C-alpha cells in the first residue's frame, strides 16, 4: 500500500515564524502536491512537483514556497506565517503516467497561526 506521511498532525505557530511542513511518500511516486483545505473552499492546490528539484505553482502559491531535494520528500515552507494561513494542509503523491493518476493523500497537518 502507498503510504504518505506528514511530519505533524497538529502545529501551533506564531505570526512571523518560519514554518516547515514535511511530506514523505514511500512508493517512488514522481508527482507530489501540497493542498490546503478550508471549510467551504474545498481543496486548493498550493504547489506541485513532477520531479526532484522541480516545482510548479498551483492556484494559491502566495506566501508559500516548496522544496524537493529528494524524490520521496516534498516540503512546504511558510516563510513568515500569518493568521490567514491557519488551515488544514494535505500532501498527496501520484505515479508518473500522465496527470490522470490517482492521488494518495497524507493524514494532513492542522496548522494554527496565532
Amino acid at each position, binding site marked *: 500500500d502507498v503510504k504518505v506521511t506528514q511530519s505533524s498532525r497538529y502545529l501551533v505557530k506564531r505570526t512571523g515564524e518560519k514554518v516547515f511542513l514535511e511530506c514523505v511518500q514511500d512508493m517512488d511516486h514522481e508527482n507530489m502536491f501540497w493542498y490546503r483545505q478550508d471549510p*467551504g*473552499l474545498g*481543496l486548493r492546490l498550493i504547489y506541485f512537483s513532477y520531479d526532484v528539484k522541480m516545482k510548479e505553482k498551483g492556484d494559491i502559491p502566495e506566501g508559500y514556497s516548496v522544496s524537493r531535494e529528494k524524490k520521496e520528500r516534498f516540503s512546504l515552507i511558510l516563510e513568515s506565517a500569518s493568521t490567514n494561513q491557519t488551515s488544514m494542509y494535505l500532501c*498527496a503523491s501520484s505515479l508518473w503516467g500522465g*496527470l*490522470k493518476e490517482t*492521488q*494518495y*493523500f497524507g*493524514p494532513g497537518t492542522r496548522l494554527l497561526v496565532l
Partner: protein
Amino acid sequence: GQQVMQIPQYQHVQEGEDFTTYCNSSTTLSNIQWYKQRPGGHPVFLIQLVKSGEVKKQKRLTFQFGEAKKNSSLHITATQTTDVGTYFCAGFEGSQGNLIFGKGTKLSVKP
C-alpha cells in the same frame, strides 16, 4: 480557467434514504475521479471514470459520467451511518493541467 462545481454543499439524510451529489464542469473533462474524506481523515480515492456515458458501481455507490463529459454524479442507495463524510469529485481537462477538485458535498446520516 477550468472550474468544477459540486452540489449540494451539505446533505443531511435519514439512514436508509438515498443520496446524490452532482459535479459540473465548464469545459469537457478527460476523466473524473471521486474521493471520500471521512470526518477527521484525509481524501481517499474511490473511482475514476474515463468514457463518455460511463457508469460504474461499487456496492451501493453508483458513479456516472455524462455523455458530454462535462458532468458526473455519485448516487448512494440506502445510506448507512458509515457513509458519512465529504465526497469530492475531481476532473482533468485535456492531457495537461492539474486535477481540479470540486468543493465537496458533506453528507451526514441520521440513524
